[in-house]
């Protein structure tokens, strides 16, 4: 059985890794053509930096033996050693410990990459690299220990979070809010139009994310079992319902259902189902997906009123979608899907789970925002976060990487 479980976890790890280039395409399509490579590079460099730091130490601080009070792991697994005795707190019947921490490495990679959706068009490349290195250890690692390690204090209290509604989604959303408040708005935003340069690129990216998310959620069962199957179908249904929810909102509110709206709605649905995937029924997933699609479609409009420049709506989709998922898990969770779970308010469990989920969400918001703000401020005051106004106007592809995304020789074809 361990061989089958390990196989599934390794396949899932590959699926989750593939989400990051998918995210790069999703983001790349939404920025202007002078900044495509820069935002894609922020995603790719996360695959480099976070993977290395994960193996050296971050993995151990998350999954190593607890140092006390469920706050942080020790360095017993540094360099991915010491795994022969299994992961502290995990049973021995599941997948190989090395497979589990490899799978978890991909989560850290994409969570760091997600933040680049807020900082596009104006962040210095070296500053971004330094930022994600610091942020991995000071924000991601503690949160992941609290929630993903069975010894973590939130997990220990009975907080349910199947695949990272707190650690990945709420965390990336509110970390992004914090860094963009330090970084400031893009020059010209919001008076100047900064329309996406290639929506087809974004649609391809969401297709890849959708594909990879099956590994993200169903893989979080950490084995080939019934819960994994629930997580799989729930992911598919929440994405579908989210897509339809966002489109209906647009059709009613603005007349046109947009392709970018369809893609964003699918992502919103999958974000919200992330904490719920292995704890709720397929019919609950439809409700969770459609609510996420509608509410996130409203949430991405708030930035124009409040004037914070979260360029590609990491807060509006991942932060808000994660909050929706955590709250709805407190309503819809049922032990009929997962005996290791709990019952929610609508399934006979009373307010107990709901209050735990809300508490975990609030803790995540406060911790992510505060610590990320401090990191961003420290980097801004020392090496500087932001490119010069001239470089911003020329575009980050040229000024940060000496490349252009599109070099079109000669003239395009005229007429047909």
């Amino acid at each position: 059985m361990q061989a089958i479980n390990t196989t599934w976890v390794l396949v899932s790890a590959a699926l989750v890794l593939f989400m990051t280039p998918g995210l790069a395409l999703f983001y790349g399509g939404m920025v202007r053509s002078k900044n495509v490579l820069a935002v894609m590079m922020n995603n790719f460099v996360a695959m480099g930096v976070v993977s290395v730091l994960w193996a050296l130490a971050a993995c151990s601080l998350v999954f190593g033996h607890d140092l006390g009070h469920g706050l942080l792991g020790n360095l017993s697994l540094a360099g991915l050693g010491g795994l022969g005795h299994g992961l502290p707190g995990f049973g021995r019947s599941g997948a190989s410990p090395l497979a589990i921490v490899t799978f978890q490495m991909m989560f850290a990679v994409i969570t760091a990459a997600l933040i680049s959706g807020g900082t596009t068009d104006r962040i210095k490349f070296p500053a971004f690299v330094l930022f994600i290195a610091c942020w991995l250890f000071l924000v991601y690692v503690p949160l992941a220990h609290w929630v993903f390690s069975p010894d973590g204090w939130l997990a220990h209290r009975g907080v349910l979070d199947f695949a990272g509604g707190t650690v990945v989604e709420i965390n990336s959303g509110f970390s992004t809010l914090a860094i963009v408040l330090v970084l400031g708005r893009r020059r010209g935003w919001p008076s100047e139009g900064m329309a996406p340069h290639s929506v087809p690129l974004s649609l391809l990216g969401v297709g890849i994310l959708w594909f990879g998310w099956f590994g993200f959620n169903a893989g979080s069962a950490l084995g080939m079992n019934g819960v994994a199957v629930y997580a799989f179908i729930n992911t598919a249904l929440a994405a579908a319902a989210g897509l339809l929810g966002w489109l209906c909102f647009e059709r009613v509110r603005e007349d046109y259902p947009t392709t970018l709206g369809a893609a964003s709605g699918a992502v919103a649905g999958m974000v919200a189902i992330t904490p719920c995937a292995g704890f709720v029924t397929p019919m609950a997933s439809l409700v969770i997906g459609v609510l996420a699609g509608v509410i996130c479609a409203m949430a991405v409009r708030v930035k124009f009123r409040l004037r914070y420049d979260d360029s590609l709506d990491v807060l509006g989709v991942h932060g808000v979608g994660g909050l929706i998922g955590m709250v709805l898990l407190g309503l819809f969770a049922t032990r009929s899907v997962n005996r290791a779970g709990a019952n929610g308010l609508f399934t006979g469990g009373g307010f107990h789970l709901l209050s735990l989920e809300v508490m975990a969400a609030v803790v995540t918001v406060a911790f992510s925002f505060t610590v990320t703000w401090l990191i961003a401020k420290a980097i801004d005051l020392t090496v500087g976060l932001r490119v010069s106004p001239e470089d911003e106007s020329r575009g980050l592809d040229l000024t940060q990487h000496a490349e252009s995304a599109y070099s079109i020789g000669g003239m395009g074809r005229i007429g047909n």
Partner: protein
Amino acid sequence: MKLIVAIVKPFRLDAVKGRLKELDVHGMTVTEAQGFGRQHGHTEVYRGAEYQVDFVPKIRIELAVDDSRVEEIVDAVVDAARTGSIGDGKIWVQPLDSLIRIRTGERGPDAL
């Protein structure tokens, strides 16, 4: 000699080209252009944010022709490019002082 410049809707380009070929016009230069007249741009919406696109894509056609042929060519372009709705474009005709065929060095009407 005259230079005829026509700004037309992109999807009428094939019709204009076909008509000019029928009239035995030997050459034309075409560029992609953008602008606005009475037809204004359009609005695009991305995640609820509206973007005003002010300029409309057009095709700019340039033809150097002999004085005697100006009327029939202008008529042909008007006929082929017209759809009857706003945004059909404009044609203007201006004098052409000199014309040189680079390959042979011919000058004036011989170079047409």
